[in-house]
Structures are given as C-alpha cells and as structure tokens.
C-alpha cells in the first residue's frame, strides 16, 4: 500500500485506495449553495441601531419633560428683546439699555429686571431661592416667608425678610438697597445691616454692608454715612451724631458697632439721648462690646425684637 497516496494523494496512486475512492465518491458531499441564513432579528445592526435610537429618543423625551418641569422663574418681557421664557438654576438674563423684563415664581414673588442688568439664578430650593445681581437694577416684590429669598451682590447678600425693595449694583460693584415695604438685611462675613422700609443702605466691595439710613434724613447725614462707609471717615462720625434725629437711631445703633473705641462713647451718648436706655444696660458695658446690652438697645428702637432677627438669621445658609 502506498502510504503517501493514502496520506496526501501524492506519489503513485494506490490501486486499492483509488478503487475505493472511485466507488465511494458518489456518496460524498455535492457542492451547492449554503442554507439560507440571517442573523436573528435582534442581532442585526439595523435593528440594534433602531433600538438604540429608540432608547435614546425615549431618554431624550424624558429628559426634556423633566427639564421643562424643573422649577424655574417665568420670564415675561416687559420691553425690548430678552428672548428666554424660563430661568432655571444656572440660567441668566441680561437686558440692554432698551429692554426690561419681569420674572416670577409662584411661591416666591416677582422681580422686575431693569435695563442694563445681568441677573442669574444661583439656587432654586424650597428653602433657598437665590439670585445673583452682577450689575444693574432689580425691583423685588417678595411674598415668600422671611429668609428664603436672597440676592447675591459683589459685596454682600441681600436677605429678604418679607418685603419690597430695589437693589442696584453699579459698574464698580457697589450695591444700594432701597426698601419700600418690610425689611431687608445685608450680610457678609458676619457683618450685617438691617434696613427697614423707607431706609437705604450701601454695600461696597472689600468692605461689606454699610450704615443704613432713612431716605428722608438730612443730606448731610446721608453724605456722612456714605463717607464713613467708604473709608471710616472720623469727621463723618461727628456729622452723623449732630445730624441724627430720634428716628435716625437705627443709623447710630449700627454705627455703635463699627466705630473705633475712641468714638464709641460719644455715639452711645447720642443714642442714649434718642431712646430710653433699658434697665441693665450701662455705658461701660456697651463700651466693652457687651452683645446682650447692644441687643437690648435694639429692642428699644421699636423695630422688632432681637429674637425675631435671630430667628431668621438662624435660617441663613451656612
């Protein structure tokens, strides 16, 4: 037997093997077409792509619905060309010299955005609705409970205490709040000013909230307050003391906490002339910065109890 031929058909054909090959070959496989075969439908690229596209479309639709249902300030154009209709967290609105808008949130209130203003939404939570005023002017009418609506300015946050007010930030970042109804607090790094209706207050970059004053105070007093806010001008302290009416005790109370120890005595003396100093409060104690005595002085201003102030202050975001 030719082993080579049996192995790989090389060499001289082995007659016996060749005879068997010829005999058995008709039983072998006949070349033909392979069976019809296709990938299962769920594995075909087109189907996979279609499924992926459908999933993406569903997720996209869900995202759109959820996105549109996110809490957002509704924007109404009062004048000009602001084009957005919703203002969600992270969004902002800008007005030019010829446009103004009004944004509203049912559970918070309404804010009018004046020309040349840029305003953005920093937070939208049940207990904290926070805007940031980069520059320009807003007028806020807030009906949310006190301590839930805030406006950041470059040098302080304005905390609404249930009120209506106008807030302006100029090109240098200096903020001015003018309160029409209720109260506003300016706060920055522990420095705070409480501004009642018909009063105003400046806040300056690098210095923070200034001394609040009633807008019907004398021009000399207002000028002196601004000078003191700007550079702690010592002569201004004398003007404030001399120009103070009884009603302006709120300015003296704030000044008491900010003047140098050398001036604190005469500020206290002027304040003591305007109000009835409560029992337990002494000049020495106030000069030493006794917090309880200073709080007791506030209570005599007829601007609300200090416990009320502490209540909303405890709700300030840390």
């Amino acid at each position: 037997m030719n082993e080579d031929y049996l192995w790989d058909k090389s060499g001289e054909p082995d007659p016996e093997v060749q005879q068997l090959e010829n005999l058995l070959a008709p039983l072998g496989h006949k070349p033909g077409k392979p069976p019809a075969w296709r990938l299962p439908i769920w594995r075909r690229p087109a189907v996979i792509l279609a499924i992926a596209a459908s999933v993406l479309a569903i997720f996209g639709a869900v995202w759109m619905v959820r996105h549109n249902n996110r809490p957002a300030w509704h924007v109404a154009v009062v004048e000009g060309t602001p084009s957005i209709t919703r203002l969600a967290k992270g969004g902002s609105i800008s007005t030019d010299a010829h446009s103004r808008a009004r944004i509203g949130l049912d559970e918070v209130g309404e804010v009018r955005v004046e020309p040349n203003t840029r305003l953005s939404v920093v937070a939208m939570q049940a207990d904290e609705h926070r805007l940031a005023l980069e520059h320009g002017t807003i007028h806020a009418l807030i009906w949310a409970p006190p301590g839930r609506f805030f406006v950041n300015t470059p040098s302080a946050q304005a905390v609404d205490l249930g009120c209506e007010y106008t807030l302006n930030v100029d090109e240098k970042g200096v903020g001015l709040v003018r309160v029409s109804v209720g109260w506003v607090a300016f706060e920055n790094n522990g420095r705070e000013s409480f501004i009642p209706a018909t009063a105003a207050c400046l806040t300056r970059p690098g210095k923070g909230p200034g001394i609040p004053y009633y807008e019907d105070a004398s021009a000399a007093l207002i000028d002196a307050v601004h000078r003191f806010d700007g550079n702690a001008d010592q002569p201004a302290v004398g003007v404030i003391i001399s120009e103070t009416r009884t009603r302006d005790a709120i300015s003296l109370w704030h000044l008491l906490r900010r003047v140098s120890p050398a001036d604190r005595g005469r500020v206290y003396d002027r304040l003591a002339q305007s109000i009835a100093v409560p029992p337990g409060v002494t000049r020495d104690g106030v000069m030493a910065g006794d917090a309880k005595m200073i709080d007791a002085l506030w209570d005599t201003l007829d601007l609300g109890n200090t416990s009320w102030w502490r209540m909303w202050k405890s709700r300030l975001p840390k």
Partner: protein
Amino acid sequence: MAIVLPNSGYDVENTIALFAAVNRPQQLQRSLVERARDGSRTAFGELYEKYARMVHGLLLARVPHSEVEDMVQDVFLLAMRRLSSLRDERAFAGWLAMIARNQAIDYHRRAPKTAELEEGMLRANPPAPEAFKALDAVRELPEAYRETLVLRLVEGLTGPEIAEQTGLTPDSVRVNLHRGMKMLREKLEGRAAQ
C-alpha cells in the same frame, strides 16, 4: 500505541490532540468567523464551502446517506445560531465537528430505522450498490478510524486537510488512516471470501 477508551471508539491520543489543535492560530478562519458572527452571509458561505465536506463526512460516518445533506444544512444553521457563544474563534473547526457529531447522536435518538439502500436507489443517479456495501464496511470500524476514512475516501480530503478541519494532529490522522485502511481491507477481503 493508542489507548482506546471502552465503548467510545476514541483513543486518548486523539482526544488530547484535539484539545491541543483547537488552540492553533488560524488567522483566516478567525476573520471568517468574526465576519460571520457579525452577520456576513458571504463569510458564512465561505465557511460552508470550506467545512461542508468535513461535516458531511462526519455525518455520513454515522447516519443514513439519505439524511446527510439535510443534516449538513441543519448543522451549519445551528452553528451560526450558537456562534456568539464560541469564545475562541480558533476553535471553530473542532467546535463545528462536535456539533455535527452531536446532531448524529440526536438523529439516532429520535429517528426510526430506515432501509438506506432502498432510499439510495430511488435517486435519479443512484450510487452503485457496491458503494453502500463499502460504506457499511467503513462504518463497522471503530469510530476514530471510521471518521478519518470517510473523510479521506468519500469526501476526498487529504490527511493534512482532515487534521486541520477536525482539530486532530497530523500524526493521529496518519495513524488512523493507516490502521483504518488495514482493518477495512481485511473486512472487504473477508466479505469477498464469503
């Protein structure tokens, strides 16, 4: 010397060789398998063309001739459905052979016995009756020899092709051919003498 497992027809050498062979790099096969797995009917056609004779031979060694062509188609369709489960594409040939053998076993579990010779004679150009007799003689050989001889004598594959397509080593195929041919010759001579 080959160690033959009782009642199996396989020897241990062949089994070890099979597992060694399935790990051999076979670049062409790998790319065809990959493409078929991705749904390429062209690649499927090439795999069919390349391995159909092997599958036909493995089936013919076990089931009636009249059933084999349909079963070849079934084996390929089944393999394509399961192709995504084949982790090592280099093992495709041995894996396909295993499917063919299992299909043959399934056939015997469920199919009634038929008179193969009659069916063969119903064809338009039936093989000679002597062909079926020779095939019967081959089928009486131990399984390892039976498969190898069918692939060589019926399907016309060479020894190296049998080794490549079944996953056996060339040495195992050579031994199977030699011993199988010797046993077949003895059987045929014995029948002729009767």
